[in-house]
């Protein structure tokens, strides 16, 4: 009767890996969002403040909009 348990861990791993992959995908998206949001804001700040001759445009306080997370899908 022990034959019933053959490859049990493989089968379980197959199912579980789906969930793990989703978690890993979510983790990648989240790290990407957080890193990109901080980096792009800083880049936008540096870029706008050193570009052009219009001081009021260079110093515009509303120079950046927070990135959308888009960790799943849009509807």
């Amino acid at each position, binding site marked *: *009767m*022990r034959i019933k*348990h053959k490859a*049990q*861990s493989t089968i*379980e*791993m197959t*199912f*579980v890996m789906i*969930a*793990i992959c989703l*978690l890993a995908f*979510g*983790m990648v998206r*989240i*790290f990407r*969002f*957080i890193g990109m*949001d*901080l980096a792009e*804001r*800083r880049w936008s*700040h540096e870029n706008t*403040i050193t570009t052009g001759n219009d*001081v*009021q445009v260079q*110093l*515009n*306080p*509303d*120079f*950046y909009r*927070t990135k959308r*997370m888009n960790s799943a*899908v*849009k*509807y």
Partner: protein
Amino acid sequence: MVFISVKHKQNKAQAATELAVFGAVLIFLLGSIVRNGLNTGQQQNLQLKAMRQALLQSYQGSINKDASNHFEPLVGRNNSSIMYFEDRLSPDISRYGNSDRVQLMASGSGTLTNLLYYPLTTDAEIADARNLPTMDLYINGIHLPLTASALVTKVLNPPAGYAASYSGSPLAVLPGALNGKTHYKGWDFMCMNVLTRPDPGLPVDPITNPETQTLLGCPLFYNVSTKPGQYGILTEDEAFDLNRNDDFTDDAPAVAGNGKLARTDMSWHWKAEHASTDLNIDAANSSNNVFDVDNDGQEETIYKFTTDANNIITTVTVMDGQEGDFDGSMEFINGRIPGLQQEMSILTQGRSGTYFTIKEGKLYNPESGKYARSVNFKDQVELVQRMFQLTKNTGRFCSQDLVPVRAATLPDGTANPVEACGTGGLSGGSSCFTGDNVKQTCLDTETLMLYLRTRVLDKTGHAWLSSTQGAMP
């Protein structure tokens, strides 16, 4: 007969069980990362915004133009100072969507040093409220400009109970209460010594032509000196009377002892001169015009002054840092430290009829072709109260009457962010906590406490939808 050992039974679905446990931990960690990431991003955004806004304000003052399109620079925000407070929603897993609020605070200051030199010269410039040094608070989008000083005209009178001059024959004698002090409460009682007699052409005669001596007093203008031995007309004791209470026993002694440092250990001392035209005050060029003129131990900037026949200054128009809405140099007022207080509260009220909606199940919308699996949202207002201790009611927000009246606009023409005026109920007016006032930004003119109340509409929530069109949009 089927044998399934206990050992094998326990091992069934072990990977799934472990994933359930560690997956939950992992999801929690991911949630924490999202939360901290969003908060960090918002904080970074606010810091950059504060710095940019401060620099922008400094620049906009520099390029200001009048109605004739001529440059008319404003100096009020030359050294711009800004503080932002925002109460942002923070991601969480509460039932009706995000409900936790995180206080974000950022301050910025900026000065465009290549555009700084704008002395106020004309009466119109001096009187322009936009030229008052101002710090700006932005609380959940509400702009609260607080002046850090005010332009005031002060009449320079001798200390209460004393006369501006004393005369007598043969010699004037100062009032006994002065204990021999000629300098007292910012006044010099022996500023000028005037000798008169009935007939100046004849010699003094105690009977036929007696001489009368008149001691004219005059104000003293103080300023801080760091040069050793530079006391002006003060004695060394007076120069090291740093708290200016005319009591030398609590000051630094000449030689260190009894737990007190010596005068040589002090980094500064007072220096004073008679308030007269001999001071060569050049207000038009902002030169030699910073003195303590009102004996409050703080220096003021002189813009205008008038003199009497003896060239003694009798009135001064000064920019006084103790006359604005907020004086950061003041230690306590009404038992509180001036500025933003630690107390803060958030009150939440759901909108009647629409609050806290939860919808579950197949709510099919034929127009969108989607099933709403789960919809949770709320419709509420959050009242966030902060307290800011002012140091003076300048009348900009609420009048200085016993029962204060709210000003429609501020002196610079902008809207008044204070919505109500209260008196603590002690003077017959209404308190800042009456039913009408409790939801509004209110200044209590008795305690000088400014209750900053911002109302934040919160209609957030979440919806889980699925499409029946066969493709994800």
